[in-house]
């Protein structure tokens, strides 16, 4: 695969558009570039932290259809090696992140090409199946040298296909569509304004990410249904726009309700030697999770019971969302000199033992509750991944 691994700190300037890297760098008095480079890295890290600060609202039973343009326009090479492959690669990462942040949410994928819309992977709550079909599609594109991206996309057909599934979703859940559009045209069988009106009535929120330029109908669709519209600048910006959909949309009109859920116990294979069929994958296996209401078996959670339509989850699935409810407050940044002046004696980061005196960042990050100090890296790690403060746990501060 030719695509660069843009997993982590893609926002570094020299990884983004390498033509201009030197413009941001200045030599210091001794002629070294290191300080300038470090400053750039730290800026990128801080940007990531700030992004985390946004308030999240918890309409968390989410259902999103992602509509992928796979038309001729996606063979364009303004993203390297071409738009289709970049989009598929970025989406794989997105799927992982989405289920991380929306443990009981569901995703579905629709592709549109040659005036048609077809389902790439059905609405489901397991990341593996989505990633598998995305990978399959991208190897198909590589194998055929992007010949499989043909014709024009059809916005209307895709929306109608998505609506067919979304309108059956319970009213307390969110219904969302994210369209990734490379083409500037859409081939629709009937007036699309009627479809948009219809979508709006179903409370389906549509967002569009344009890969080429602003198209009136896309903006109109987003405005009407309360979604967002954006045109990408480059790959990093595309990742940003897409990642905006990981957090639940704020201010979305979803009915709050009490949902009945089942918490099945896991029966390990050796305890019950009988072979039975998993109702979602339709495959035979030994052991699994049994629906407490109707005893049908599933090999994976979360899932909606096919027989009695009870939502089956495990306690950790719900626990995974607790960090939305109890977000870790931002730490305050203090200059190291000031920290020492105030009587601080620690020289190392509490969690990773990194020396705080030397290095490019001469500031420390302090938890306002337990007053423990950390380095910048740990601060980012705690807010993005860990969602708790080791200092607070250790001093048994109540959350």
């Amino acid at each position, binding site marked *: 695969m030719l695509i660069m691994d843009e997993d982590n700190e893609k926002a570094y300037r020299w990884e983004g558009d390498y033509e201009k890297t030197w413009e941001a760098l200045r030599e210091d008095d001794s002629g070294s570039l290191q300080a300038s480079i470090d400053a750039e890295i730290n800026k990128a890290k801080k940007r990531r932290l700030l992004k985390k600060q946004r308030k999240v609202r*918890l*309409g*968390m*039973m989410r259902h999103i259809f992602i509509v992928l343009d796979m038309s001729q326009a996606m063979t364009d090479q303004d993203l390297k090696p071409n738009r289709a492959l970049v989009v598929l690669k970025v989406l794989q990462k997105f799927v992982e992140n989405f289920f*991380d942040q929306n443990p009981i949410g569901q995703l579905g994928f629709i592709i549109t090409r040659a005036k048609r819309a077809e389902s790439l992977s059905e609405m489901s709550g397991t990341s593996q199946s989505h990633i598998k079909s995305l990978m399959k599609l991208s190897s198909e594109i590589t194998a055929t040298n992007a010949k499989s991206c043909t014709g024009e996309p059809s916005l209307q057909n895709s929306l109608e296909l998505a609506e067919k599934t979304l309108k*059956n979703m*319970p*009213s*307390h859940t969110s219904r969302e569509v994210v369209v990734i559009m490379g083409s500037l045209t859409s081939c629709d069988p009937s007036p699309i304004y009627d479809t948009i009106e219809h979508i709006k009535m179903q409370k389906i929120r549509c967002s569009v990410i344009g890969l080429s330029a602003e198209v009136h109908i896309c903006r109109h669709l987003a405005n009407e249904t309360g979604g967002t519209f954006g045109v990408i600048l480059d790959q990093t910006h595309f990742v940003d726009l897409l990642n905006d959909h990981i957090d639940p949309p704020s201010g979305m009109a*979803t*009915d*709050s*309700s*009490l*949902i*009945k*859920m*089942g*918490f099945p*116990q*896991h*029966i*390990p294979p050796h*305890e019950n030697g009988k072979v039975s069929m998993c109702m979602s994958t339709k495959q035979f296996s030994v052991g699994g999770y049994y629906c*407490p*209401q109707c005893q049908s078996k599933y090999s994976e959670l979360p899932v909606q019971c096919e027989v009695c*339509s*009870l939502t089956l989850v*495990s*306690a*950790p699935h*719900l*626990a*995974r*969302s*607790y*960090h939305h*409810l*109890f977000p870790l407050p931002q730490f305050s940044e203090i200059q190291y000199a000031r920290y020492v002046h105030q009587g601080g004696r620690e*020289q190392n*980061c*509490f*969690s*990773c033992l*990194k020396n705080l005196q030397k290095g490019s960042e001469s500031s420390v990050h302090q938890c306002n509750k337990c007053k423990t100090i*950390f380095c910048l*890296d*740990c601060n980012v*790690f*705690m807010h993005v*991944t*860990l*969602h*708790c*403060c*080791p200092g607070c*746990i*250790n001093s*048994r501060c109540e*959350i």
Partner: protein
Amino acid sequence: MDPGEQQVLVVIFDVSPVWWGLKSLQGQAHITKFFDSLIIFMNSYLMLHSDNKLAVIASHSTKSIFLYPPPQAGNEQNSSEYGDCRDKHFAVVDNAIISSFKTLMSDGCEEKDMRSDSLIAGSMANALCYIHRITQELESRERASSRILVVKAADDAASQYMSFMNVIFAAQKEHVVVDSCVLGQDSGLLQQACDMTGGLYLKVPSQYAFLQYLLTAFLTEPELRKDSLVLSRTKSLHSVDYRAACFCHRCLVEVGFVCSVCLSIFCQFSPICSTCETVFRPSSLVLKSRKKRKVPSRSSSPCTDASIK
């Protein structure tokens, strides 16, 4: 296995004064004996590859402390005269661990330290931060396989549940394997942690078995356990309890009601959520029951026909 892969191991040793104190009074176990076994284990680990990285954290009831590496790493002391034939590197590591352990033990306990649980979650959070730093400092082409070994003595604490869960998810996300070696009572939280990260969970029956368990089971890196019949089987032997406890009575539920706004679990229906004070609209209930009737009738007709035949 993969020569380019670097091993990172963080050992968390539960030094709960209450648990060890009781065991010592009963003459069943002494902390220093276990500590000695742990030192042997850590030396064996370091011996496997010269690049192997190690950190040791002591988990006390009110603090968690890095025993190794020492905080002021950097000023290498003159470590040539250790007098015995131990390898220099091991001598440095051993002495550092032993001296910080001695300091910790001689610190004594205050009234507030008298708690039945240890700060395992806090120590694990620190371990993850440390691993995060080590992996960040690696050269870009190097990969690290990291794991945490928890040697747990004291009981689980419900108060740490939330932080514990956060730590497990972070470990899962960072591909850090959590192994646990339990000396006292079975720990439901650690069972979940091991199950979710693909680690090994073992309960040690006696002090004499401790070192043998460490050397046979926990010395093997997770990647290699898959090929071992014995070690790969042990994982699935325990059934892990993933049931949820309701927020209202703290009882385990099989079918419960979950608030769609804050995901609190209740064992019975109530019109208002006690956690986030959301009032549930009665209309949503009506809608739900109507939908429930509709869904089976639509999908069941071909299905039931088939099953009758």
